[in-house]
């Protein structure tokens, strides 16, 4: 039995026992999606629902997104990044620790459908997976692809694949990947301001302003988002490029020091914008300035809620 099956079985067993013992009123996990390469969020409330729960490398959404404002006792199936997001929400008082059971899943990285499509453009009718590879098939073809060739960008540089904090792990710990070295951002800084602006404008040119990135993000729980404020109205509602740019800049800033690089935003984006580029610029700065990574400890304070008398700010004259 492969790792995936073992973890799936463990999740189901644990979910059943948590629900029947009343330790959890709902288990938030994943079910098989109705389309290939997708695992969908699933809310199990009865032990008999639990056999629908699965673990899969298509589980790209961050389930911590469903925690804020929930009144029930929750057991959360959480990969490394999701667990960190959940910890972050607890430090930000969006959820109560005593109402959360973190069922940690050691994750080996998730598959990016866009990269699969780049390798195999024909319509895919079915996708199966083993621990190392996925098998996709369609009309007249079957192809095996190694997972490590089609991992999401954020998964390739994830150094916390095993949840750092959890109530229970569903499998043996897995080694983290080499962390993001931000080499591309470094390279970008060597260009002129106009070239950099052109790069970022091009990055978001297809943006529909659907805000799926915001809605998929476990950090975005504000009751009224700045894009929806009307008095004053900070953002026009049209597809004006500067309004779009403002949205992405402010979204990035709001996530600074809180983003766990879960990639849910990029997963949700219907036009495949690398929206996380804005976050990465800030992640780099947060790590350089304050050696901070969010969601690694219960008592950690996010960097923008604290200060040091000697914070580095040579640019302030």
């Amino acid at each position: 039995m492969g790792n995936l099956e073992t973890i799936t079985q463990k999740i189901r067993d644990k979910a059943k026992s948590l629900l029947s013992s009343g330790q959890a009123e709902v288990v938030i996990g994943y079910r098989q999606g109705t389309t290939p390469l997708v695992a969908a969020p699933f809310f199990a409330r009865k032990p008999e629902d639990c056999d629908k729960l699965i673990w899969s490398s298509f589980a790209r959404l961050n389930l911590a997104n469903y925690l804020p404002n929930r009144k029930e006792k929750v057991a959360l199936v959480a990969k490394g990044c999701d667990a960190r997001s959940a910890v972050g929400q607890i430090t930000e008082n969006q959820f109560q620790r005593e109402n959360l059971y973190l069922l940690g899943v050691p994750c080996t990285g998730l598959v990016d459908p866009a990269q699969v499509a780049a390798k195999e453009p024909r319509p895919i009718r079915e996708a199966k997976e083993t621990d190392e590879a996925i098998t996709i098939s369609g009309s007249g073809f079957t192809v095996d692809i190694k997972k490590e060739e089609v991992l999401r960008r954020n998964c390739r540089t994830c150094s916390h694949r095993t949840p750092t904090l959890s109530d229970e792990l569903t499998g043996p710990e897995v080694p983290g990947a080499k962390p993001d070295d931000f080499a591309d951002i470094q390279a970008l800084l060597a260009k002129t301001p106009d070239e950099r602006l052109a790069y970022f404008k091009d990055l978001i040119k297809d943006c529909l302003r659907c805000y799926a990135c915001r809605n998929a993000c476990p950090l975005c729980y504000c009751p009224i988002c700045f894009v929806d404020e009307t008095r004053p109205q900070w953002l026009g509602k049209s597809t004006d490029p500067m309004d779009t740019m403002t949205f992405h800049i402010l979204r990035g800033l709001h996530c600074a020091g809180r983003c766990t690089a879960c990639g849910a935003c990029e997963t949700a984006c219907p036009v495949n914008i690398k929206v996380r580029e804005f976050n990465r610029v800030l992640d780099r700065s947060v790590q350089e300035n304050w050696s901070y990574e969010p969601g690694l400890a219960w008592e950690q304070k996010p960097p923008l809620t604290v200060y040091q008398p000697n914070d580095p700010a040579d640019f302030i004259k």
Partner: protein
Amino acid sequence: MSEFEPKVVAFFCNWCTYGAADLAGVSRLDYPPNFRVVRLPCTGRLNPKFILEAFKRGADGVWVSGCHPGDCHYIAGNYHARRKFILLHTLLETIGVDPNRLRFSWISSAEANKFQAMAKDVVEHVRACGPNVTFRKDELRLDLAEVA
């Protein structure tokens, strides 16, 4: 076409830099008139969207100035603001806002001379950048002649 006169939106803390501007005026220290000043209770009040809004509406430069670290009227407002500025400055610089268009400074209410020098310096840097055409919202993009 007359020579380009930059428009700079200035966000000043009520307790320090705004006082410095006042003192500079009272002391008859001349400084360029290119600023539109927005008085804030503290630089901690500065939401990044104010800066973006200024650029979006066509400001050629933005200048943010408050109390020296340690001198905040509200004890730690400018310390918190400083962390925000660090990230904001990094992000705006990375995505291609010319750093010369955006100035942060600490000027106490006694530093009228520093205010005068800084004001001149800000305007000269922004002038060198030229008009802000890349980071403004070309609001309506319609020929008003069409409807006039």
